[in-house]
């Protein structure tokens, strides 16, 4: 249990990378990249966790009444989730452009076109 969450984050990252490298469709590759991104969120939040603690949000509990987890990593992950989605959109826009210019979204066929 001491390192399980970190190992899960490593697994997600590696699986996403494998998918990126072997993908035959650029849209699928963008999906794999978003899997890779989620590994970073798991790792960040795992680093900030504290046993038997609760969220540092004091709208419904008294300050100091319970131990709380680390808010800094949560703030990092939270902005990144939304910004990551817009970056995914940018990549998908690039894929649409590639499909318009070259008529294919298979990375292997694209390499042949250039040569």
């Amino acid at each position, binding site marked *: *249990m*001491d*390192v*399980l*969450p*970190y*190992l899960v984050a*490593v697994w997600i*990252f*590696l699986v996403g*990378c*494998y998918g990126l*490298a*072997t993908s035959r469709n650029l849209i699928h590759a963008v999906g794999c990249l978003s899997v890779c991104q989620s590994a970073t969120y798991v790792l960040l939040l*795992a*680093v*900030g*966790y*504290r*046993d038997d603690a609760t*969220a*540092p*949000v*004091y*709208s*419904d509990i008294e*300050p100091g009444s319970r131990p*709380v*987890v*680390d*808010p*800094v*990593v*949560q*703030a990092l992950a*939270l*902005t*990144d*989730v*939304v*910004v990551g*989605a*817009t*970056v995914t*959109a*940018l990549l*998908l*826009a*690039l894929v*649409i*452009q590639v499909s*318009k210019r070259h008529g294919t979204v298979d990375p*292997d066929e694209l390499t042949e076109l250039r040569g």
Partner: protein
Amino acid sequence: MTPRTRLLLVLVGGAGIAALLVAACLRLPDFGGDSHPYGDRAVAASLARQTANTIASVNFDQRAFDTLGEMTILFAAVVGCVVLLRQTRDEHRARPEPADVARPVRRYALIVLPVALVTGLYVIAHGQLSPGGGFQGGVVAATSLHLLYLGADYRALERIRPVGMYEVGDALSASAYLITGLAGLIGSAAFLANTLLPYGTFNTLSSGGTVPLLNAAVGMEVACAVVVLLARFLDQAVEIEEESGK
């Protein structure tokens, strides 16, 4: 390079990275450990400034400059999408055919749209108190507008969504964040310093100094950005067609 050698290369490289990452994981502090020096200080600082949601305080007060960077990435990504997905000279717009959606789905969309919009605004407005904030609420509010496309048809969505207005709104809210930051220079000598407004009463809507203002600016920016993004993608997928031939 043949696919076979490439796969071999990926597997060898992946195994190397995996070994390094696992070795690093074993040396990390144990999961659930009790030592969080940054977290403890962030919580203390947030409570000193009467912000109930510590995460909002980290985002919009202690690390507000970092959030400005995130917002710039967001803005740049949207500008990039708008440029990439514009209508080129050899493309024309085809009128999408009106859709005939089953009545329960249409009714559901029309009932849930205002509820989701209000929930999105609630999540933004209570960002400094309960879980939520500009980033989350903005996406919820923007997504809710697209129920009109899902439940009715694309033309209904286009009527309530002048994209130009949302592009202006995006830029305005980004500048509002900057101006609030510059206003911090009046009270003290630091950009984005939270010293301008009184900190208010703990756990009320007007607590936290400039946190609610920056939160609202980010909420508006995210909402406008998502609407503009989806508008470009919908244009490409539904309306824009290339001239015959290519």
